[in-house]
């Protein structure tokens, strides 16, 4: 799973997809996940980073991460490998 490399990401949580013209806004955790994806991290790496940083149960993290990934896919921001 890879982030669509053509998309532009600003530091303060905005995403622009030049292929579709869509803009998005992310909350802090959303921004963090997208940045990690952009730097080539795998979902497992991301889980590890977030569990270390946040007070969150692994199961709950997994559940919301899965949700977020499907939102990214729905918005054409992720490419299936």
């Amino acid at each position, binding site marked *: 799973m890879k982030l669509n490399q053509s998309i532009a990401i600003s530091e303060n949580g905005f995403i622009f997809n030049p292929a579709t013209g869509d803009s*998005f806004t992310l909350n802090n955790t959303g921004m963090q996940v997208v940045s990690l994806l952009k730097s080539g991290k795998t979902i497992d790496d991301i889980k590890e980073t977030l569990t270390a940083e946040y007070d969150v149960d692994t199961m709950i993290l997994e559940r919301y991460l899965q949700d977020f990934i499907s939102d990214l896919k729905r918005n054409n921001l992720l490419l299936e490998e």
Partner: protein
Amino acid sequence: MEKKVFERPTITKLTPGMPSKHGSGAAIAPIRYIEGLKIDDLLEKYGSPLYIFSESVIRKNIEDLKRSFTVRYPKVQIAWSYKTNYLDAICRIFHQEGSWAEVVSGFEYDKARRNGIPGEHIIFNGPGKTEAELLKAAKEGAYIHIDHFDELFLLAKVCQANNVTARVAIRVNMDVGIYPKWDRFGFNYENGEAWDAINRIMANPQFKFMGLHTHIGTYIMTAEAYRIAASKLSELAAAVAQKFNHYIAYIDMGGGFASRNTLRGAYLSGEDTTPSFDEYADAITSAIINSQIKPDKLPAIILETGRALIDDAGSIAGTVIATKRLTDGRRALIVDVGVNLLFTSFWYDHKINPTQAHSGLVEETVIYGPLCMNIDVIRPSLMFPPLKVGEHFVISRTGAYNNTQWLQFITTRPNVILIDTNRQTHVIRNAETIDSIVSNEQIPDHLK
């Protein structure tokens, strides 16, 4: 190092130039405390969901309403509308503040009596009074508000058969320029029915004609309607004085003052559009004072305000059970407060706030209750922060009608607590159990 609080990641598509009906989606501030007590702690102690009432807010509302009227008019009496909320503890707060009881059934009448209210401080409204209830109310000196001619004749028969006199008033319906026009209760003003009823009452020596009552509707958002109603009732009172040299003791303006909740589909928030008590008071008192009634014979004004006195004193706190993404992309939250507990969600876009802070981002969300029923929707659409499973929220202004029109449906009803003026909490209705629900059921022998 202490770990950070986890907010579930969200992404929201921006649609410049095409704001949704919610506009840009303002951040929703958390409501953490009610009367200085942490909502999360109350939920932990008393369970979720939880009805929470504030005694201070109730007392303040009564004081505000009283002040608005008494600065403009010499005689004002509030009668607590039992059907709005007849939990005994709530009623007793109103009675401690001097409110009479306004009841619409034998059940409510008995509840008021149990709460220590004498018959002569009970206003007995409603279209369905039985012979036994009428007799009891007449004997105890309650104000019986006659709804229709059949009740008038029934009461006459009851008084004659038992040799009692009854203190009566009539309910009058009329056109006050608003829609819907309520004409199913009482006698009509415009077609002369009300005047006819008054004449029949005045002709019966076992009736003491005490007053005139109207209830023009519910959630009335214009004070002008009350001015028209008060003015028409005053004309009737003046006509009675002229013809019979009889001065009625009171004009009862019923209820119907709007609370600050926002009606479903309303463009503007109820907080901006609801008239103040002062506006209602000004309309009603000036209509009566400016009428043909002689200044030394002014009747008392009785107010049966329910909703506007209790709505913002009650809240329901609850917990998120699940989150979902709907096929149209909207976020859905499933919470443990259903329409069985929040009947008013059919009428209002209730204000809902999380109990914890979130980043400013909100997304379009549907809030569903836990019932396995398609109608169980608390808010069909609002901009809401990304709450996680197990997080808490509080729904404000739920004090009116939800503890009387609630349904024991699919599940049991939770605890109701009162926060007193010293910030002590009291359970005023215990959570139901399966035993309390089935205690009235009986199983025939062949099914045992």
